[in-house]
């Protein structure tokens, strides 16, 4: 009885370890191919354009709307709280930390994960079940450079660009709110925000976006390639993939916070 339990734990650990090993090998191969000279840039570029179109351009209108709404509402709440507490001195710092560094990347990455990560996972899983990936390989086409690399790069790029956009737009729309409600002038607001932004903040925003973008694209691809060759396994693959994507987001967020505290 006890032995069975321990075996269960052991089995679970081995399974996880194998998974982690496979994932690491996959990521290592990804970078090897990415930086090798043989990779055909032209093909990558074409797929990238399509991927950016699906990930960013199609989402753009909705995304902009969300950033405006969150920018006004959120900054409004922060403004009035801070004012009530008599901490107006830290207004700039609080807005920059909360909106630009925390909410920007998080909301962007969640939106893109919801839309694109699930789509990528399904796409790769379907290709795998249909044997398309195998046929690509049999024709001598490297599936890594043709299928995976363009997707990872474009999603990462999109997260980076869009979380920056989110921060800029949210801060801009925050101004509208602070102007109408609190009568803060444009000059005062821009000075307030600009003085609170440091190069370090921009760096943290960049690193966070790139890390998150990378994981929310490579994880679903990896799950897609491991799908068992049965159509009913596709949803299982997507489900597991999305759970891992979510964990990865949390882990990156926590790691960066820990890094900041050290």
């Amino acid at each position: 009885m006890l032995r069975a339990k321990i075996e269960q734990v052991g089995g679970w650990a081995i399974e996880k370890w194998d998974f982690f090993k496979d994932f690491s090998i996959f990521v290592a191969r990804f970078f090897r191919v990415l930086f090798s000279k043989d990779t055909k840039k032209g093909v990558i570029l074409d797929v990238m354009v399509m991927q950016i179109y699906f990930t960013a351009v199609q989402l753009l209108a909705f995304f902009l709307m969300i950033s405006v709404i969150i920018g006004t509402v959120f900054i409004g709440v922060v403004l009035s709280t801070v004012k009530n507490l008599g901490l107006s001195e830290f207004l700039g710092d609080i807005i920059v930390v909360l909106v630009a560094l925390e909410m920007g990347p998080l909301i962007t990455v969640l939106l893109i994960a919801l839309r694109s990560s699930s789509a990528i996972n399904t796409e790769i899983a379907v290709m795998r079940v249909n044997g398309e990936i195998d046929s690509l390989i049999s024709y001598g086409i490297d599936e890594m450079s043709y299928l995976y690399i363009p997707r990872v790069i474009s999603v990462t790029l999109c997260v980076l660009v869009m979380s920056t956009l989110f921060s800029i737009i949210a801060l801009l729309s925050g101004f509208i709110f602070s102007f109408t409600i609190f009568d803060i002038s444009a000059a005062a607001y821009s000075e307030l925000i600009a003085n609170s932004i440091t190069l370090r903040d921009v760096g943290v925003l960049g690193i966070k976006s790139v890390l998150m973008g990378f994981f929310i694209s490579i994880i679903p691809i990896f799950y897609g390639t491991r799908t068992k060759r049965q159509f009913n396994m596709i949803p299982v693959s997507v489900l597991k993939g999305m759970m891992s994507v979510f964990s990865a987001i949390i882990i990156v967020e926590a790691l960066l916070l820990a890094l900041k505290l050290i």
Partner: protein
Amino acid sequence: MKKLSVLVTFFIILSCSSTPAPSWQANAHIQMENYIETFMSGKENFAETHYERFYENLLLTADPDIIIKAPLTKCAIEFSIFIESNCESAAELIPMTKDDENRNYFRFITSSRKLDTMTGKYRRVVESVSKCDVERTNRAISRVEEGVSTLIAASYAVRHNCYNEDTLLKALSVASENGWIKASGAYLEKLESYYVSSGQSSKADEVRKRIELISK
């Protein structure tokens, strides 16, 4: 990091506060100081009321080791200007106290024999008086801080007959600096009899004139 600390202070500020000393303590302290001040300045009427309030405030604690500080203080103050008293009210409380400091202090101001040792600020005085080294005693007295304590130390030396002119002059200057006319009077009288007994009649006359001046 800086920004994080800003957020942290944000919340710390909201949760800080400090607790003042209990009111019996603050009040007792003031009353005690007023008692000493008024008593030494010869305003006995007020001194008495201040002493009563001092005692009442200490009584609130119901702790004999704290309550006894009032009669001990009174006794010590009287002791410092040679008023003989047997410290009855302190003596009554002594069996109930647990703190050695109070017991030692009680012995210090009431015992007719010299003590061998004593803790606290009077240690050096007690030790030099026990060997009756007048020079050392005078130095030890000068080292005692706070006016009242200096007078108490000097009075201890006088009681155990281990003093000279300097001892009395030191105490007199402390009393005079603080405007304690009652203490000044007491030490002037001691000084006068010291001069008389040592045959310095001209100095004794001078002191007598000073006594007359203040007793007008």
